[in-house]
């Protein structure tokens, strides 16, 4: 009987269309940034772990991204970059560890934490049968923005990212570059203090990539924290203040570009990456032996 009651309550609570959740029901709007953002940690992960079946995707990972900083997440395929970003975005639940977004504990207050972040992946995930503007308005409502606020933000993002024709065209009809710009605009729509970018330029041509990188730089300039996962070393060198290198879900090195190059005695971040990977593999083999 208790089970029946629980199921019925769940069903009844699902049918809440008559009591439409007002926007005020959403977690508060993105947190205001402090006037001296440089010291404010907006992304914090401590001893984060996640296992899928036999695979340890993330292993005791710790990182911090401060306001106004772009931190690059660098690693080969399967290193755990996407899993880390999904954990931070609250899409996945960690097996262990603590993580917070803009000071909000992601595990305790996932909706509030999600209200403070924008997440963009290389897979644009757009609705083919909605125009760019409809897509952005839809997501703006999901973030609790009023129609007027949404339209103002869409105009601002149009200026910033040069969205142009894609706004009034079906998203499915746009080029890869236009789709990705629209996807990034969706991530920035609610002006979140934290932006998680997962290989957002992987399918873009040179011109579209430049537009996206310029957009990210401008966003960083406004005191936001950006965690930027990428394969392209030149992008990491151009954009990032610090880099976290991952292999098998573990941090093998982290620091500013200069620190990493100095420590590895290499002239480029790509060479530094190979140096740290080789060092990690060597240590791993010694431990195994």
């Amino acid at each position, binding site marked *: 009987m208790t089970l*029946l009651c629980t*199921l*019925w309550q*769940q*069903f009844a*609570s*699902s*049918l*809440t*269309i008559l009591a*439409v*959740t007002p*926007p005020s*029901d*959403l*977690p508060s709007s993105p947190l205001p940034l402090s006037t001296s953002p440089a010291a404010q940690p907006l992304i914090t992960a401590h001893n984060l772990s996640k296992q899928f079946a036999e695979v340890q995707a993330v292993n005791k990972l710790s990182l911090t991204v401060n306001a106004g900083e772009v931190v690059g997440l660098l690693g080969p395929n399967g290193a755990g970059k996407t899993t880390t970003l*999904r954990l931070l*975005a*609250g*899409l*996945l*639940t960690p097996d262990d560890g603590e993580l917070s977004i803009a000071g909000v504990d992601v595990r305790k207050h996932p*909706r*509030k934490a*999600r*209200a403070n*972040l924008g*997440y963009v*992946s290389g*897979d*644009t*995930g*757009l*609705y*083919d*049968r*909605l125009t760019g503007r*409809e897509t952005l308005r*839809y*997501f703006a*409502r*999901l*973030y*609790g923005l009023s129609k007027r606020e949404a339209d103002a933000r869409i105009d601002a993002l149009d200026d910033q990212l040069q969205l142009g024709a894609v706004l009034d065209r079906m998203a499915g009809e746009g080029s890869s570059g236009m789709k990705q710009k629209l*996807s990034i605009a*969706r991530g920035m729509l609610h002006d979140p203090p934290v932006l998680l970018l997962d290989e957002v330029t992987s399918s873009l041509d040179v011109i579209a990539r430049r537009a996206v990188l310029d957009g990210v730089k401008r966003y960083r300039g406004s005191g936001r924290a950006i965690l930027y996962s990428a394969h392209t070393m030149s992008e990491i060198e151009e954009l990032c203040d610090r880099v976290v290198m991952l292999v098998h879900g573990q941090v093998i090195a982290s620091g500013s570009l200069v620190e990493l190059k100095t420590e590895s005695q290499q002239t480029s971040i790509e060479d530094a990456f190979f140096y740290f990977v080789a060092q990690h593999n060597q240590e791993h083999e010694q431990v195994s032996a």
Partner: protein
Amino acid sequence: MIVHLVAKEVLSTLRDTRAVLANLLIPLIVLPVVMLGLPLVFGGLFAREAVTVTEVAVSGLEFLPTELRDQLEAEALALIETDDPLEQVDDDLFPLALTVPPDFAAQLANNQAELTLHYKLGNLRSGLAASKVQRAINSFRDTRTRATLDAAGVDAAILTAVRINEQDVSSEAEQRSGMMAWLIPFLMVIWTLSGGQMTAIDATAGEKERGSLETVLVTPVRRRDLVTAKFLATTLFGVSSALMAIVGYFVSSRFLMSGLVSNLMGGSSDAQAMMGMMGGQLSLSPSAFLLLTLSSLVVAMMVAALLICVAMLARSYKEAQSYIAPLGLVMILPVVGLQVADFLTLGLGFYAVPLLNAMLLMTDIIRADANLAAMFVTWGSSLFYCAILLAIANHNFNREDVLFRT
């Protein structure tokens, strides 16, 4: 919040031409086509065959009595002499062949006469020709019998000494619903499945495949609200399809069947009989219409919850379609139950069997035979199953292995 989520699903489906065609237009025209088409095609066929001269291959034509020959020709049959009647029918040169034995006159004198008809039982044209021949032979036999009785001084009324007076005690609504009344609930249930299918798959497996589900999950929207929105949008299209089928049915039964078909068929009795069988005389009261709509809604809710549950497990649109396809076959099972329902004593327990309950209740409503207890059991049990399925869907929407299966 849910309103925005539902609005997006509805807009997205409405912009899919295939979905609009499959969900709204086809249900609107399928029943009229079936209900109009069958009387028109078969009624027209029967009427035409009745006046069209049909050629019959006859072996032993010279042995056929003139009276019987006249009776056969009166039925619009042209008798063509042939040596091998079986082969003629087998090669489809004639729809039917008749073999008259050489000693037919002698057999007739002994009241032991036998004629052989060769025709293909499964062939409609062959069957119609056979019925013409049988009518002629019966008429010939009756005439002879009456003449024999007259000659013997016996009143021919002895042949019909006992008559059967058949009285149809079914209610007016039952009579009007026709023998095909079961088809209406069946089609309505099928339409709730096919109507909601595209939205359900697009909103679950489709979103996973496109990667758009992930982008919604990172917003502050509650996952429960997402499931509810997808469920409501699927229900909306499921019930819309079913309602379109009802509208199509009413247009055909109220206007087309009574007007168009009757005019086209010139009031042919075959067409009228066919219309009656198809439920063409049906007229529902406003309350029956409302109950039918409510029943469709409840079925659509249960089917929508089932679709969301199943489609959510798939990784892609195609995979979801392959999961859902067998559901269409499963839905045929209650129809088998519906066929034998007249042989069963239907206790309330039958009204708790998913899908069969709705089909039974809808048939009851159409025949103006629904009772309150059956309604409550049908609606209550369907909502209960719906609640269980929604709880499972909610549970699945919180499972990482379901959301991020690749």
